[in-house]
């Protein structure tokens, strides 16, 4: 079985010689044809966020994995856009860098040239822009391999939190999480904010506590996570950001565990 698709359905190289792809402008050495991203390489894991009565709290750890190798341990996966929006990214880190350092920087520069009479660039605007970008890219079968959360507030100063992924799928909610977080963190966060109304009665402290607890659970059970993370609070007054290290972990019980069944010590 030939495992290289570029070899399928073509005359055999050993009989007819190698395929001459020189007339193809986009040809890459060794590929034979242009290849789009088919899978992520260096990846970031979950992003989690919760709305509270004044704003949104969002967190993501600082690890960029290379497969199962914990390769880069100090990667910032939260980006402040303008003054009142934070975007969190999981998935492919090169695509994240393209979105953060290229797309969003360009958007902010363009915005700085716009007239005073324009409503300022808020989270819903950044979110709409990113959702159009990700859907356009997947429609060209060349997706940006990310799951993004956009946190901020709308023009009425109400907290805004929404998600878009590599397929261009969009949704919002009072608590959101990507990747592993959607399975492990979201059920915990939803105890605090089961619906939009509930989020309006949640304080910053309660929301922060829930997010920190969820980050700890993710570190316990997500093999692509690390015990250091960034956390940001977005309110109409601006963005507050900090770096946290997981503390008060619970491992003491482990020394009593022996074997896998019948072993006693």
């Amino acid at each position, binding site marked *: 079985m030939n495992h290289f698709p570029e070899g399928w359905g073509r005359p055999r190289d050993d009989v007819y010689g190698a395929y001459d792809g020189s007339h193809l402008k986009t040809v890459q050495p060794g590929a034979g044809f242009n290849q789009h991203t088919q899978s992520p390489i260096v990846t970031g894991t979950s992003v989690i966020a919760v709305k509270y009565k004044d704003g949104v709290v969002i967190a993501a750890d600082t690890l960029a994995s290379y497969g199962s190798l914990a390769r880069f341990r100090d990667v910032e996966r939260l980006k402040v856009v303008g003054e009142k929006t934070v975007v969190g990214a999981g998935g492919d880190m090169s695509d994240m860098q393209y979105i953060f350092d290229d797309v969003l920087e360009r958007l902010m520069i363009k915005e700085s040239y*716009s*007239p*005073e*009479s*324009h*409503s300022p*660039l808020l989270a*819903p*605007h950044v*979110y*709409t*822009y990113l959702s*159009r970008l990700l859907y356009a890219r997947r429609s060209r079968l060349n997706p940006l391999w990310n799951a993004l959360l956009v946190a901020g507030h709308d023009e009425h100063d109400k907290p805004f939190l929404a998600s878009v992924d590599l397929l261009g799928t969009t949704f919002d909610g009072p608590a959101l999480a990507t990747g592993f977080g959607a399975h492990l963190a979201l059920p915990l966060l939803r105890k605090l904010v089961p619906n939009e109304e509930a989020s309006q009665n949640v304080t910053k402290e309660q929301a922060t506590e829930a997010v920190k607890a969820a980050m700890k659970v993710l570190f316990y059970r997500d093999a692509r996570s690390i015990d250091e993370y960034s956390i940001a609070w977005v309110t109409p007054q601006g963005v507050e950001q900090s770096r946290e290290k997981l503390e008060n972990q619970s491992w003491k019980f482990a020394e009593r565990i022996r074997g896998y069944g019948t072993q006693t010590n």
Partner: protein
Amino acid sequence: MFRNSYDNDSVTFSPQGRIFQVEYALEAIKQGSAAVGLVSKTHAVLVALKRNAEELGSYQKKIIGIDSHFGIALAGLAPDARVLSNFMRQQAMSSRLLYNRPIAIKRVVDSIAEKAQVNTQHYGRRPYGVGLLVAGVDKAGPHLWEFQPSGMVLEYKGAAIGARSQSARTYLERNFEEFENVDKDELIKHGLQALRDSLAQDKELTSANTSIAVVGVGEDFVLYDGDSVQVWLDKLGETRSSRRRAEEEPATTEATTTETTTETTTEGAAGSSTEGQTGPGGPAGPLDPAGENMDTTE
């Protein structure tokens, strides 16, 4: 055919530093029927005088809605206004689709100014033959902009373009401090009062020849055309120009400006000839400098 050797195209400066083709394009606006725009603290209003080519013909549309928060009134070549308004619609839609926010009036006006400027800089192109009043509401409130084919755009509290528009401008200059604080109905009334002063001697405002558009803070752009205009004309009462009233009722004389009387004499020449549409060379060719044989402006 040409006044001098510096007006064959829009890429030639005269020794005095003028671009004659651009100035001829500005003449096309003056041939068009009048349009007036004015703003208060809460509303922006456009009023325009529509023209019909002959008794049996329809009246040419003068006001075009672009997005729910702004629209334009035109004077000059209507097809050029269609091109520019289509472009503005695209800009406005793009802003809504891509950023989920209504476009700022200044940004959309700047974008057509840039298009107009490019046309004065490349060989084989011609300037747009149309002037626009752009009225709308954005984050910073109501705005009125005037667009000229030279690429110049200016923001106004009140402005008028087209034939005999000086009379309307005079009205606006005398009253702008008053209409700054009035409500929607009063602002439209001021607009119609300015517009009726730019009427030809034998004309008056009717529901057939008048167009009104209004947009306000928290209110969408609305165009009143045909029968719906009659309500506003009834509120206005007098539909003849103050100049004509002064002549017909000498007892209640109003001050008439000198330039309005001079304009009345030139008006006959512009409207009389219907033969020979555009100058040689078709639409891509240079504009007819005299402008007398053109009756294609609205």
